[in-house]
């Protein structure tokens, strides 16, 4: 089901799954092209959560996805404000589910607790964008024109403490490691229903533990 939500800068849409009450998981996709490669995957996780009786929403954020705000006006503060507004609209007991650079966006006090999968820091995303910029013959960053203020702010962006899950091929510390492939790196968008089910189980157990 598609619903609108309002934030200080306008109106955006969000996909809603599962029951209309109880705890709600608010999803933050990674920024830029990684969003295209992980959207179907995140929808699969939210559907699996809905089957377990847990509500979920996937908001479009200003300057991303189907938003009418162009990427050359994207701002971290707007992304965060819109995510907070979506969470407030979604329900009173909101938990975040953030993938990769989506973990930069869920720092709002509206969120009770945070769950991150393979989080990417602002500095890491900044380096990836710079490298893309130099490797690509096109102007911009992987096809996006990005404002200077965004790029200047990005390396310093903070990630809040969260339950952190990573792929077992990632050697960095985490709370839980799972087998699977890095969908955000695939040359074409793909899905991984086995991994989506594994992660949905982890999120469902975590939400229930937080609610208890």
């Amino acid at each position: 089901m598609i619903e609108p939500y309002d934030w200080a800068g306008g109106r955006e849409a969000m996909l809603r799954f599962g029951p209309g009450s109880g705890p709600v998981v608010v999803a933050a996709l990674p920024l830029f092209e990684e969003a295209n490669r992980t959207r179907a995957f995140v929808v699969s996780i939210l559907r699996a959560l809905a089957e377990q009786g847990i509500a979920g929403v996937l908001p479009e954020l200003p300057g991303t996805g189907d938003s009418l705000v162009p990427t050359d006006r994207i701002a971290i503060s707007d992304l965060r404000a819109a995510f907070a507004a979506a969470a407030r609209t979604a329900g009173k007991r909101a938990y975040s589910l953030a993938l990769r650079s989506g973990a930069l966006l869920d720092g709002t006090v509206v969120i009770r607790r945070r769950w991150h999968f393979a989080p990417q820091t602002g500095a890491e995303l900044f380096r990836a964008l710079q490298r893309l910029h130099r490797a690509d013959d096109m102007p911009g960053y992987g096809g996006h024109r990005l404002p200077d203020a965004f790029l200047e702010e990005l390396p310093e962006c903070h990630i809040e403490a969260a339950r952190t899950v990573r792929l077992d091929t990632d050697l960095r510390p985490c709370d839980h490691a799972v087998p699977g492939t890095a969908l955000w790196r695939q040359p074409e968008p793909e899905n991984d229903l086995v991994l989506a089910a594994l992660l949905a189980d982890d999120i469902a157990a975590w939400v229930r533990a937080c609610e208890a």
Partner: protein
Amino acid sequence: MSEVENTVRDVLRDVLGLSEDRVATFDAETPLFGALPELDSLAVAGVLTEMEDRLGILIEDDEVDGEMLESFGALTRFATQKALG
């Protein structure tokens, strides 16, 4: 087989969309840049970024050259030196 070598193998599989069977055949002599059509300059950027992420290393532009990307062995040696110091 070292942990770093496995990570490099996984990165190539994920970024280039290669099959598990195909990357399993990679050895030190397997040529990469110029031999794999999937490995264009944008894919190189993805490979380096993912190696940085998974190995917790930083790769500077001036360290990236044809030699380092010449073969699976050369890339693994580079990654191992970076990861283990």
